[in-house]
């Protein structure tokens, strides 16, 4: 065989291998999605799923209204704390963190990323629940905020480091102070990456169950006071999946599907927004 033919063969072989790997990675995710849709759709289409509170076990029907509100409130409060803080720390790391302080922050954040999520639950329990004397949504938000923080700050740092240095020099050469160049030129240039990181963190927080078990505990009734225990979609999935009633199991599937939808829709909306801003 001549050399050219050998190279063409090798090229095809590697291409085929790459496609195979992509399929291996994508297929399980697709199967998972399809499965959740098939299993979740009937429960979601059942009357009252979005608007009713859970019914007592054995009583047919009922919905997850309390859990939807709970997830939105808990993740909302957590994001309100973690997104601004994480973004600012990420800016610090990228623009002013080439030193010991920056390295220390990076190390701590990497350790936090590797921590199992139940540890954040125990943190929330010890620091807030035990101190306040009762379970509450706000302690869940605190636990989730700590969980989100490293994801957001590393994503922000990565996005900012990718902004070409030429832009920093261009701004500084006009006589702009460092903070102005950072906030008005560098951060907007990296906005897509920063928003993606924040959303990834929010998506992860919305799906977490373990930290919530120790902090917000769950609630079968609608609760709007973050100082009290609240339900959450991930808790609904966890509890109803373990119960031997098919109607409740259907509700668990539907709640899982709803989580997937909430996360995807937020992602898509944010991407559309970022694209529009950057044009």
């Amino acid at each position, binding site marked *: 065989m001549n050399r050219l033919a050998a190279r063409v063969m090798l090229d095809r072989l590697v291409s085929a291998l790459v496609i195979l790997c992509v399929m291996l990675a994508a297929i399980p995710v697709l199967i998972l999605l399809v499965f959740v849709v098939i299993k979740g759709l009937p429960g979601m289409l059942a009357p009252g799923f979005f608007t009713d509170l859970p019914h007592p076990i054995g009583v047919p029907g009922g919905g997850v209204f309390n859990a939807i509100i709970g997830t939105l409130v808990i993740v909302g409060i957590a994001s309100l704390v973690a997104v601004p803080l994480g973004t600012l720390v990420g800016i610090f790391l990228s623009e002013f963190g080439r030193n010991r302080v920056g390295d220390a922050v990076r190390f701590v954040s990497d350790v936090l990323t590797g921590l199992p999520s139940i540890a954040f639950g125990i943190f929330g329990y010890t620091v807030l629940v035990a101190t306040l004397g009762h379970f509450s949504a706000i302690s869940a938000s605190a636990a989730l905020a700590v969980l989100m923080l490293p994801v957001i700050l590393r994503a922000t740092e990565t996005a900012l480091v990718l902004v070409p240095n*030429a832009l920093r020099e261009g701004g*500084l050469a*006009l*006589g702009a102070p460092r903070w102005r160049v950072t906030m008005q030129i560098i951060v907007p240039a990296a906005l897509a990456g920063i928003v993606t990181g924040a959303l990834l963190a929010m998506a992860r927080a919305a799906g977490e169950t373990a930290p919530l078990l120790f902090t917000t505990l769950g609630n079968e009734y609608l609760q709007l006071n973050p100082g009290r225990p609240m339900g959450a979609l991930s808790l609904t999935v966890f509890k109803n999946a373990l119960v031997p009633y098919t109607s409740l199991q259907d509700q668990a599937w539907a709640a899982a599907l709803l989580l997937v939808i909430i996360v995807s829709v937020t992602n898509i909306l944010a991407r559309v927004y970022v694209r529009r801003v950057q044009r």
Partner: protein
Amino acid sequence: MQTEIAPPRVRDENPKIKLDAREVNFYYGDFQALHDVSLAVQDCKITALIGPSGCGKTTFLRIFNRMHDLVPGARANGEVLLDGHNVLAPDTDVIQLRRQVGMLFQRANPFPKSIYDNVAYGPRMLGWSKPRVDEIVEESLKDTGLWDEVKDRLRRSALNLSGGQQQRLCLARALAVKPDVILMDEPASALDPIATLRIEELMQQLKKRYTIVIVTHNMQQASRVSDFTAFMLMNQQRAGELIEFGPTDDIFNRPKDNRTEDYITGRFG
């Protein structure tokens, strides 16, 4: 925020000298990059810095507006007088200095914003009023010959412009803060011959009002555009030294130093 255009000027004895570098030594950590460079840049003239790669031209250029502050471990000794005030003095207001000494880079670096916002960035930062900013944007774009090309799409992204247009936009952005001096670091090295010509024509117009210092690898360019030329070389310790400085005509036609002649005639470098 200050809104004055320029500080009161303290002139040298010689009114024609705008920038005066005196025995400048420059270090990156332990490595000496410039050795005793002295050079006087005349007001409203174009001064070209030429020499082989690594001879310290760009390093020298970036001292004039203290861009070297951004490099950790970089430091300069000696004096660089701008209108008689030592730029290297610790009490120099670097922000004010960079407004007075603008810079154009090797690769066009427009901000990922609209054409208008790019030029308006400096004036807005200085807190100038909206009508005044509008006026300056138009004036700066006209000065760089871009106005007619972009006046209908000022709100569109600057990144859609061609390479030559982007470089002229960066020039307009630098002009908008009303500098006295413009430093150019191989401003045309990434441009095609026609875009290069545009930049060179602009330089001839701009030198009526601005002092220009340009680093270039292109010797034809140096001989075409500049009034004065400085030739630099690395010495034995790899530090840059000024070999010869004088009117461009003398440097190219009657060089005093053999090394200048060898370089210019293409015998090395």
